[in-house]
């Protein structure tokens, strides 16, 4: 299990606290995410404002979940930037999936610039209620 909590080359663990990471080589924006877990799945919500559905790329490669989105800007010609909080048009984030998650059943749902990704847990690995029998 130790390998699951080690961030490898920018990938993060879904369930461990964020670690000090190596510097990403691309000029992509690290989309802020919320990650939470209930008994059936792990859900991830990422802010990616400006990314339409057809410019989203949600991929599972081995045990890595990659989220990538490109902002669709309609900048007018002769536009001169006066101020910019957002200075890249690509959002990217990647996470290491642990084995109890069903990577082949990842559901991605973009809406109003928020990408929600739900990863179900394997049925046989979901927590079961243990009855405690008293005397």
């Amino acid at each position, binding site marked *: 299990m130790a390998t699951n909590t080690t961030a490898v080359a920018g990938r993060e663990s879904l369930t461990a606290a964020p670690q000090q990471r190596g510097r990403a080589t691309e000029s992509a924006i690290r989309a802020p995410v919320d990650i939470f877990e209930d008994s059936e799945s792990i859900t991830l919500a990422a802010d990616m404002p400006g990314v339409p559905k057809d410019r989203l790329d949600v991929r599972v490669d081995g045990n890595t979940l990659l989220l990538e989105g490109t902002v669709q800007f309609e900048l007018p010609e002769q536009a001169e930037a006066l101020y*910019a909080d957002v200075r890249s048009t690509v959002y990217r984030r990647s996470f290491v999936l642990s084995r109890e998650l069903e990577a082949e059943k990842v559901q991605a749902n973009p809406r109003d610039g928020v990408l929600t990704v739900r990863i179900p847990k394997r049925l046989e690995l979901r927590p079961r209620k243990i009855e405690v029998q008293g005397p």
Partner: protein
Amino acid sequence: MFARFTSLQNSLLDEFWRLQQEMEELPGDGLSFSGGIRPLPRGSFPAINVVRTPEEMQVYLFAPGRDPKKLDISIQQGVLTRSGERQIPIDEKATYYRQERFGGEFRRAISLGEDVEAELVEAKYRDGIVQIRLHRRESAKPRQIEIRREGGDTSWPRTLRRLPGGNP
């Protein structure tokens, strides 16, 4: 509750990391706009970009997941203010590992300068970005400023010249 607290710290670190990264990526900061006297802390919500064309000033608000009708945008005397509340529903039964996304009330103001006309505003919302278009005033065209020197004295500036035996 504790989950929110600890993740807040984490998200601050994350944010710091992200900003540092973005700053390092800048190929020389060519932006000439500081928002006037109202400082704009980086990383605050919603993020904004401002671009200018010969005819228009365009403001992009990055407000993901929002119902645009709940976003209050106003402009007065060249100062654009947007406020609102971003509600992120929390599942009480779930375990939270990260809460990096901004939640809560926000209010930000940015000075667009004198050269925008407040009455002509078009705003669109798409995929979490609000685009606001403002027309520029005719009088806001770049103009030459003439510097005049007072009096015939050629030493300049006058105020730094000390008079012999007199007051400084």
